[in-house]
């Protein structure tokens, strides 16, 4: 019986880790209708940056977190200026062109990371001690990561729904034309959103590297996992994403326990394809164009 409890809690915690990686992507898609294929590579950059700071300057990941977020914020601004703002989203091929552009971007970012950090897997030995809850114990890093994810997801939801700046972002998300005709500078909102989403990826990377060893070119796996999660939750829906994170975490952890690691990494894709076939709008998404 205890094994099921452990599986359930571990699944929940790992769900949180996936959620952490997906929140930035979700925000960007929700507002801009752009799927950033370089998102996973941004996560890797954040993680490996924290690794370098930790090993060369003994800087704690807690301090590396804002540094990585700020760096990726800048990268996000740059990418939006130079690439995304140049693509006419209204055109018939707009969405596909952003997809291919971020595909090229992913290639650039991952290979730059490879150049800087080399091809070995790196992790930070930090918060490795166990947190005991009654008879159960979990790595502290997992608990922190997961906790941060749920807090972040709720914070984004509250920011979007309860604050004036969040309202500007939601207005842009719902109708760019409408927002623009109310005098909003939508290019600035998009720029800020993309930079913020990228910063979230960087911050997530710092926490995830405590748990999962990272290598420069494994970013696309994180990116795809994040994308699957937000599709399952309903693109751009933050409450749905939390639900999806819990489901994915539970399914992956229990598949891994019963059928082995290969099956665990395959089951995610299987869920993805089943969702696309039977409920393409996701769990809580509105049925829209897909």
């Amino acid at each position: 019986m205890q094994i099921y409890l452990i599986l359930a809690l571990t699944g929940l915690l790992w769900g949180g880790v996936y959620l952490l990686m997906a929140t930035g992507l979700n925000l960007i898609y929700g507002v801009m209708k752009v799927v950033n294929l370089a998102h996973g590579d941004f996560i890797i950059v954040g993680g490996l940056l924290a690794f370098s700071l930790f090993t060369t300057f003994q800087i704690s990941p807690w301090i590396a977190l804002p540094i990585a977020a700020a760096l990726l914020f800048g990268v996000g601004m740059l990418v939006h200026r130079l690439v995304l703002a140049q693509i006419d989203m209204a055109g018939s091929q707009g969405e596909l062109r952003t997809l291919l552009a971020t595909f090229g971007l992913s290639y650039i970012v991952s290979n730059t990371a490879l150049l800087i950090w080399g091809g070995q897997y790196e992790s930070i030995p930090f918060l490795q001690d166990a947190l005991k809850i009654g008879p159960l114990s979990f790595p502290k890093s997992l608990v922190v990561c997961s906790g941060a994810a749920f807090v972040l997801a709720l914070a984004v939801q509250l920011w979007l729904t309860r604050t004036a700046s969040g309202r500007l972002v939601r207005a842009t998300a719902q109708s760019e034309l409408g927002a623009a005709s109310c005098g909003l500078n939508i290019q600035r909102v998009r720029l800020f959103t993309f930079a913020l989403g990228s910063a979230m990826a960087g911050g997530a990377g710092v926490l995830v590297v405590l748990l999962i060893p990272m290598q420069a070119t494994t970013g696309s796996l994180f990116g795809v996992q994040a994308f699957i999660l937000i599709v399952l939750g309903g693109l751009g829906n933050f409450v749905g994403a939390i639900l999806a994170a819990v489901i994915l975490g539970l399914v992956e952890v229990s598949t891994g326990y019963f059928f082995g690691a290969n099956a665990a990494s395959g089951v995610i894709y299987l869920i993805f394809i089943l969702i696309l076939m039977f409920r393409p709008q996701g769990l809580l998404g509105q049925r829209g164009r897909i």
Partner: protein
Amino acid sequence: MISFKESMKRYQTNLKPSWQWIIGGIALVVAIVIAFTGSGDQTQTLFSICLFAVLAYAWNIISGMTGYISFGQIGFFGIGAYVAAICQLQLNSDWYVAALAGGLVALLIAIPLGVIMLRLQGIYFALGMLGLARIGQLIASSSALVGGSQGESVPVVGTPQATSLVMIFVVVAALALTWWLLHARLGLCLMAIRDDEMATQASGINTTFYKVTAFCISSFLAGLAGGLYTWNIGFIDPGSAFNSTFELQTILMVLIGGIGTLWGPLLGAIIVSIIGQALWAQFPQQQQIILGALTLIAVVWMPGGIVSLLNKRGWLRRTPVWATSRREDIPDMPDLSRPTDIPEVPGVSRPAESRGANILEVPDLSWHLADLSAPGSAKSEAPGSATSEAQQTRATVLKCNGLTRRFGGLSALSNCAIQVEAGQIVAVIGPNGAGKTTLFNLITGFDRPSEGDISFLEHSITGHAPYRIAREGVARTFQTSRPFPSLTAWETLLLAAIAKNPSRSKATAQASSMLNKLHLSEQWNNSPEHLPPGQRRLLEIGRALMLQPRVLLLDEAMAGMAPDEIALVHALLKEVVSRGCSVVAIEHVLPAITPIAQHIYVLDFGVTIAEGAAQEVLGNPIVVDAYLGTGEKESINA
């Protein structure tokens, strides 16, 4: 707008493609010479370039020509590689049998996968395919059939010379296949799907069939390449058979070379491989970054890749499909396109010259009414009595019963009943949000009714696919015009013509005749996007008419048209009606439709609030209230 002279210039460059074949032939000879005389390293490089060229052509067919970007075509390469290895190991087959089997198995697997996956669009399809390729890799790693995750050697291994020679011919075959696609029915349908899938369905094309066909061709090529790769390398393992770097490189090549073009994939494969090699010598570390940057540049600033740069100079432009069959001298019925060309009807005054008149003023159309109300007779009866008499004798063509469509809690249409008789012109009017376009979407199968039934020629068509409904004889236009940006005006009409006619000569003759009738002959080689809005709408009506419909549904077809264009549409409708076709028109500009409509339905908030002959309906106080507000009675009847 492109002038006639320019369009002629384009026409000439289009039909002067011979030098590209000369250069291609020289490249082929050079490649064959290298294959025979080159060193082992050189021939291996040649093999790799050819392998990527084949993968690039495979990707180009589904993603470039059909518009379904896939990040998982490498999965079919892996399937081909594994099937070839199994054939060699278990069945002791020869290399060519093994490679062909690889291609064929990939094709067979692509059929069910295509039917399922191609229902998805955009990023969903792209990443869904990525997921499938990953699942394929995991299956290959965990099965014990061929070495599992460690891999296994295969017995028959080709020399670099032999493998590169074979690969060169596969490239030539892939090039020829792409050339054929770009000049054939299949390719035309694929390009139309890429531009606008909905409008393609409305043109009577079974888009699922064509998409899946393209997917299968692409998968066969990728699988064949995989089989030949096994033969070349002599070893199989999940990591290299489902190598995602191959996928990345292939996509890079097509994007840099020119997506959706004939020569782009080959140019991309050659240039990226050569640049890659050169960079490898100079900057081994930065090579991949530079390639990524090139892709980004290609996507953002040069969406057509290298080929688009050449296109700007007039080189390598695509020739419109079946352009040589286009004829300008098609014998046709009397030209009805301009008011002045219309044969005189006794007792009816000719229309006033409308050119340059006030846009809001619609030309006097009373001359139409004489034969519209009763086709075949030119007697000038009072319109009202003619319709009521005719209604008793004519057959019902289209009948909607109790149509209801709910979106969540909102009923866009409730319990709507519409009946259209042969040769009748029916207007559907109503304020914005009244459910008019929803009604059209339900009739043409783009949306399903929550309740109710639609019958056409006494058969129920409820739930039929849009392309079937279009072919059976219910054609439509769209409220916002949906042109195919990368097709020409000629191909737009041809697309609908081939949906109806299996024979090429008939289809081209009909498309030519319609082009002349619409007075678009001079614009035949222009993209509909470059036409002025009025002509674009005319083209769309022409596209619907190519289906030889029994019922023509016009969704605000005359909005934004100049008076003389409206007159042209009226003339077209007149001809169509005289052949027994019925017209149902949604219109906001009442004077554009009420003079020719024999029956009017008024919708408001999804409910039919009035119906009847034009005069009764427009005089009905409920209609005046709901539709026009109070106090406007004088102006509508004017």
